[in-house]
C-alpha cells in the first residue's frame, strides 16, 4: 500500500508531508447523534426566526435602548466573523506572502469562513428593525460615506455572497464535474479556463474587502466614545480588530483542522501545521505589541494593571493571547498535536474575547441598565451556529474540503441521504486520468 502510494504521487517527498489534496470523507455515517442534536437546535433557532419575522424585537429579546445591540450583532457578527477570517489570514499568507504550503488547507478555511459569515449575516437580518429599507445599499447617493456601519452593511454581504462565494466556487464545480453528466462536464471544461483567468483578480477583492470591514468593526466602536471602558476604547481599535481577526483566523483554522482530522481519523501534516503555528504566534505578538504601545501612548497602562474588575478582564484576555504566542515559539509545542490544539484553542478564546468584551462587559453606558440575552435570543444565536456546524459536516462529507493524501481520494461521491459505507473499502486511486477544475 505504501509503495503504491509513493509511486502514485511524488509530491509528498517525505512521509510527514501527508496533506496534498482536498479529499472528501467517504467512510462512516454522516448523521451521527451529535449532528442530529445540532440539527434540532438549528431547527428551533430557525423556527424562532420565523416567529421573529412576524414579531417586533421588544417582546422577543431583552435588548433595550441603553444596550441597543444584542448578541446577534455583538457575538454572531462582530465576534464570530473573527473566527471566520481564516480565508483572509491564510489567503494573505498563501497568495500574497507566497506560503505555498498553505494552499492545501485553504478549502477548510474558506468553507468555515463562509459559514461563519453567512450565518452571522442571516442572524443580522433578523436583528435590524426596518429591513425593508435595506435596498438603499444599492443606491450610492444615499450612502453616508463616513459611517463605519455603511461600510460593514455593504461590504460584509458583498464579500460573503460574491467574492468569498467565487473563491470557493471550484469546490462545487469540481463535485459537479465528477458527479454530473457528460453535458455538464463539457460545460465545465468550457468555463473552468475562464474561472482560472478571473481567479487571481477576483481574489484581490476577497482580501481587500475583509481588510476593510474587519477594521471597520473596530471603527464602529469609536463613536461609542466614553461608553466603552478606556482600556479598550482607543483610536487604534480598527487595527486591533483587524489583527484579532487574523489571529482568530489562524487559530481557528488550526483548531478546526486538528479537531476534524481527529474526528475523521486523518493523518496530520507537520509541515503545514508548523507553518500555521508560526504565523499564529507572530500575529499574537504583533497584536500584543500594538496593544501595549497603544496603552502606553494613551497613558492607560495604570488602568490596565490596576488589578480591579476590568483590569482582571484585560489581564485574562491578554494572557490568553500571550500564552500561545510564547508557547508556540517552542518546537516541541508546535509539533505535538495535543499542545498545538490547546494553544490554538486558547488563542481562539483570547482573540474572540478581545472582540466581544468592548461590546459586552466593557460597554458601560451612563444610564446603565441590565442586559442579558433572553432565551429566544440565545436560541437563535445557537441555532445559526449549529446550522453552520451542520453545514460544515455535510460539506466535509460531500465535497473535497478536508486536506488528505491524494491517494485517499476514491471519487465515490454519494447523493444525499445514502449512508456512508460503514466498512472500510480498499483505497483505489482513480484520479490518475482525470483532469479536474
Amino acid at each position, binding site marked *: 500500500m505504501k509503495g503504491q502510494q509513493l509511486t502514485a504521487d511524488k*509530491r509528498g517527498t517525505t512521509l510527514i508531508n501527508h496533506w496534498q489534496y482536498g479529499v472528501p470523507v467517504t467512510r462512516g455515517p454522516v448523521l451521527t447523534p451529535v449532528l442530529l442534536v445540532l440539527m434540532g437546535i438549528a431547527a428551533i433557532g430557525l423556527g424562532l426566526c420565523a416567529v421573529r419575522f412576524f414579531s417586533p424585537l421588544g417582546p422577543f429579546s431583552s435588548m433595550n435602548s441603553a444596550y*441597543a445591540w444584542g448578541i446577534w450583532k455583538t457575538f454572531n457578527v462582530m465576534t464570530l466573523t473573527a473566527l471566520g477570517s481564516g480565508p483572509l489570514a491564510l489567503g494573505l499568507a498563501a497568495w500574497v506572502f507566497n506560503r505555498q504550503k498553505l*494552499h492545501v488547507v485553504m478549502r477548510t478555511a474558506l468553507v468555515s469562513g463562509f459559514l461563519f459569515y453567512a450565518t452571522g449575516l442571516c442572524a443580522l437580518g433578523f436583528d435590524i428593525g426596518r429591513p425593508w429599507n435595506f435596498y438603499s445599499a444599492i443606491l450610492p447617493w444615499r450612502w453616508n460615506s463616513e*459611517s463605519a*456601519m455603511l461600510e460593514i452593511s455593504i461590504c460584509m454581504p458583498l464579500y460573503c455572497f460574491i467574492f468569498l462565494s467565487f473563491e470557493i466556487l471550484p469546490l462545487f464545480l469540481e463535485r459537479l464535474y465528477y458527479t454530473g453528466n457528460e453535458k455538464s462536464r463539457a460545460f465545465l471544461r468550457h468555463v473552468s479556463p475562464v474561472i482560472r483567468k478571473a481567479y487571481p483578480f477576483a481574489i484581490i477583492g476577497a482580501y481587500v474587502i475583509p481588510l476593510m470591514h474587519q477594521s471597520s468593526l473596530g471603527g464602529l466602536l469609536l*463613536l461609542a*466614545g466614553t461608553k466603552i471602558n478606556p482600556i479598550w476604547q482607543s*483610536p487604534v481599535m480598527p487595527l486591533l480588530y483587524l489583527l484579532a481577526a487574523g489571529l482568530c483566523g489562524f487559530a481557528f483554522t488550526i483548531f478546526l483542522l486538528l479537531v476534524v482530522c481527529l474526528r475523521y481519523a486523518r493523518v496530520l501534516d507537520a509541515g503545514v501545521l508548523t507553518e500555521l503555528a508560526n504565523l499564529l504566534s507572530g500575529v499574537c505578538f504583533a497584536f500584543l505589541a500594538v496593544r501595549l504601545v497603544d496603552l502606553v501612548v494613551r497613558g492607560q497602562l495604570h488602568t490596565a494593571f490596576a488589578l480591579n474588575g476590568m483590569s482582571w478582564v484585560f489581564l485574562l484576555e491578554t494572557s490568553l493571547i500571550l500564552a500561545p504566542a510564547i508557547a508556540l515559539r517552542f518546537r516541541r509545542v508546535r509539533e505535538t498535536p495535543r499542545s498545538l490544539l490547546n494553544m490554538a484553542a486558547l488563542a481562539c478564546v483570547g482573540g474572540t474575547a478581545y472582540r466581544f468584551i468592548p461590546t459586552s462587559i466593557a460597554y458601560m*453606558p451612563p444610564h446603565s441598565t441590565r442586559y442579558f440575552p433572553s432565551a429566544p435570543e440565545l436560541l437563535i444565536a445557537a441555532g445559526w451556529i449549529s446550522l453552520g456546524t451542520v453545514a460544515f459536516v455535510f460539506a466535509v462529507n460531500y465535497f473535497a474540503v478536508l486536506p488528505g493524501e491524494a491517494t485517499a481520494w476514491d471519487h465515490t461521491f454519494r447523493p444525499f441521504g445514502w449512508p456512508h459505507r460503514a466498512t472500510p473499502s480498499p483505497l483505489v486511486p482513480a*484520479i490518475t486520468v482525470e483532469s479536474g477544475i
Partner: protein
Amino acid sequence: MSVALSRRQAFKVMIGLGGVAVSTVLPKTLSAEEHPAHPVAPPDAIGMLYDSTICTGCKACMPACNEANGLAADSVLSGGIWDMPTGLNAQTKNIIELYQDPHSDEFAFVKKQCMHCLDPACVTGCPFGSLEKSDWGAVTWNSSLCIGCRYCEVACPFEVPQFEWESWNPKIVKCEFCYDQRLKKDLEPACTAACPTGAVIFGKRADLLAKAKDRITNAPGKYYEDRVYGEHEAGGTQVLYLSSVSFQKIGLPKLGTTSLGHYATKVTSLIYKWLSGPILMAGVLGFFIRRNWNRHELERLEHEKETGFPDQL
C-alpha cells in the same frame, strides 16, 4: 516632432500626470475637514437654554411636547391615569427629571431631550443618512431611510434616540426640535412655548450663549463651575444648560470637548478619501497575488505532468 511611445511608456506618462494632478488637488480637499475637532456653530443655528435654577418642575413642557408630536401618554407607572415616564422612551421625547440628594436637601430639576450637537455622533454613524442635520441645525430622522440598525443609540453620548422595541414598524423616537411640526411654520418648539417660568427659552444659539454667560457674570458663584454645559461638550451642542448642582449629578455625562465624529473619522476619512486606501491596497495585493499566481501555475503544470494529479483551487 513625433516621439514613438510604447504602450508601457504611455501608461507611465499618464500615471505621472495623474499623480501630479492628485498631488495638487489632494492637499486642498484634505484641508477642508468634514469633522473638525471643535466645530463652529453656523450663524443661523438655533438653540435652547435650560436654566435648572429657574425650573419649578411643573412639567408643562411634557404634555405640550406629546401634543405637538402626537405621542401617547406613557401611563404604565400611573396605572393608566396620567403621563408618567421614567426616562426618555419610545413615547417620550422630552422629560423633566428630579435629582434629589439623599443626605442633604439639595435638589434640582433637569430637562432631557435631544442636545442637537453641532457635530452629532448619530448623524456621523447613520449608514444611509436617515438622521441628518436639517435647517437651523435641528437633528431630524427620516423614516424612509432608516434600516433600524440602532447605531445611533450606541453612538449618542446622551442616550437620546429611542427605538420602538414594541412596534412591528419601529421608529427612532427623538426630539427633532419640532422641526416639521412647528419650526417650519415659524413657531418656536412646543416645550419652550409652554414653559411658564422661562426656565427653557428658545433663540439663536449665539444669543442664548451670550445670555447664559450674562447670567453667570451677574450672579457669581450661583452656577456650577460658572460655565455653560453644552458650549464645548462633545464639540458643542445647540441645547445649553445652566445648573447650580453638578452637571453629572443631574445626569449630564462628563464629556471631552472634541466632537465624537472627529475622533471616529480622523484616520478613516483619510484612508477612505475617494477610496484611495482600498484602491492602493488592491494594487499592492494584486501585484503580489498575480506574481505568486504565476509561480503557482508553473508549479501546478509541472506537478500535473509529473503525477497526473490535477491541481485544486
